[in-house]
């Protein structure tokens, strides 16, 4: 038995992980979801912004991190449209624009908001960090057209948008590079702008330092924060129909974490038994 556990076939672990994520996705467990301070900070800041404020949401992710970041994107969009904000989006990852389109259709589009007056997607621009820096000096020169090829001079809500300082708030949804770190370094430190971040759980520990120092106003880290934000913004909702993807995912993630912890414990029990056996032999 000890030998079996010591050289446990990784495929057995994989099966347990698969079951622990698949079963909660099929059957609702409904574990409680509260709200942590970094998440409340984002929510409270958006609540404080006056209706009609110009908010830039930079969606810097791709389908790889979609399970964590897409629910966040949906919840943030819903909150902003509920509050009557003007939402502008940019993408620094090439595969992001269709995801943003999907998020817009599910939230603003379904809520009767109009493209061009309530929402504009400026699209993907290659160059990573340089694009962020350039937004600091001129947006019309950097984005002469939106994602659909319309000249920005013909888009009503682009009037008065000169550079990054034309926005009242920036929300960055980030899966890595370029992402929150670059927004903090190039925009917050240069122009003293209000920025909040939504990121994958794996990069959240890095951004806690920025939240603690006040360089970002709030932080949504991973699916847990996305679920908390869904709850705060009234998701699941019927009008518009929005599913609570992150809340559902939280049950699965909880079970998967539990399985990992159990395997770590098994690994350590085996390790101690083995050590004891070796001592006894000596």
């Amino acid at each position, binding site marked *: 038995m000890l030998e079996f556990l010591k050289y446990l076939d990784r495929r057995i672990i994989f099966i347990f992980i698969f079951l622990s994520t698949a079963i909660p996705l099929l059957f609702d467990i409904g574990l409680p979801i509260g709200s942590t301070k970094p998440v409340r900070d984002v929510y409270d800041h958006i609540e404080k912004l006056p209706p009609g404020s110009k908010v830039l949401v930079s969606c810097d992710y791709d389908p790889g991190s979609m399970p964590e970041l897409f629910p966040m994107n949906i919840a943030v969009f819903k909150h902003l449209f509920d509050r009557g904000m003007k939402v502008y989006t940019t993408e620094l990852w*090439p595969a992001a624009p269709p995801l943003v389109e999907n998020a817009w259709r599910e939230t603003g589009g379904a809520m009767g908001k109009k493209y061009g007056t309530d929402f504009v997607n400026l699209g993907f621009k290659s160059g990573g960090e340089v694009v962020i820096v350039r937004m600091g000096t001129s947006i019309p020169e950097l984005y002469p057209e939106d994602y659909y090829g319309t000249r920005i001079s013909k888009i009503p809500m682009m009037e008065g948008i000169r550079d990054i300082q*034309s926005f009242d708030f920036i929300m960055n949804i980030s899966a890595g*590079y370029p992402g929150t770190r670059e927004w903090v370094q190039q925009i917050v430190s240069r122009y003293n702008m209000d920025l909040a971040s939504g990121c994958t759980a794996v990069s959240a520990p890095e951004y806690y330092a920025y939240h603690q120092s006040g360089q970002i106003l709030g932080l949504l880290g991973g699916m847990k924060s996305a679920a908390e934000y869904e709850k705060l913004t009234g998701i699941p909702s019927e009008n518009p129909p929005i599913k609570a993807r992150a809340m559902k995912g939280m049950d699965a993630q909880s079970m998967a974490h539990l399985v990992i912890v159990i395997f770590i414990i098994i690994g350590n029990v085996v390790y101690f038994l083995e050590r004891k056996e070796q001592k006894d032999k000596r």
Partner: protein
Amino acid sequence: MKNVGRFRSLILFILMTFFLVLPPLYAQEEEGKNFKYEITRDIMKSLNESAEQGDIPENLVVALAPLQGKVFINEQAFRQELVGALGRQLSAQYQSRLVDMSKIRVDWFDMTKITIFIILIAFCGMVLFFSWKAKTDPNQFIRRIPGLDAISEAIGRCTEMGKPVLYVPGIDDMNNIQTIASMVILENVARVIGEYESDLIVPIRPPFVVPVAEEMVKKGYLDAGRPDAFKPENVRFISDEQFAYAAGVNGIMLREKPAANLLLGSFFAESLVIAETGVLAGAIQVAGTANEHQLPFFVAACDYTLIGEEIYAASAYLSKDPELVGSLKGSDWAKVVLSIIMLLGVVLETFGVHFLTEWFFIR
């Protein structure tokens, strides 16, 4: 070498001329151009507050909104724009008030960034001083970095087994310093591989890294005296997509079975996917990144891990060039100075003295 030194001096001279001589000349020629007129975000905020308190009419603020962020270098043009935007609402009194509020001096130096400037100059000074000093004393000490020593061991293993070495330079572009550091290590790795007569596969994510990596591998083989062993098809652009790239690298690991995987550069969420596949393929793995959030994954899955700045020390460590080793010493001393300042800051804050913290506070 001397040419490069002379070139460096010439460039510095040209730049110093540009920054020291041009500004005063420009300022003299364009008198009055040292001001700009801009309704900034902060001004709009204060106008909004005044409107809420009833000091100014609300529709004045609404009419001004389109002008926010627009820069005027001429007072006349700014006044015209104000009249155009506000029309009858704009009395002479409001006009003058707005012009005064929006008049911003454009300096040749941003004093709010003086802290960063001083730290930057001090740090660069230390690095340059120690690297200059090292030229007179070539026997510079550099501590052992087991991860870098393990690279030769891993390459030796590949040669014994007749299998290739896989070098993954991270997923960032050439504008990331980690990728530059990784390219320098790649050249050394290619040289050793050339000497051992093994194969080297380099899968790449950002297209810009491809020609640099090709050049590095070519030079490494050339230095080893085996330029004919360079195979251009082994430096491969896989995909600009993060996980498509990870899938491509995993495919190479499982199909071509390299006996050693060197994962050195800037990694993100794909780090563990790649490193665990390496474990599955039974390869010896040396990893290194300055992206601290990925270090736990490498520590768990790889045989050796270069932590944080160790990856930047690689170039000096592998080449033993005194100038480079000296510069390492410079950055280490800077770290000592920073640590002392931090400790001092903690003590002063504890006793309620805030001047040091405030001096460092940029926002």
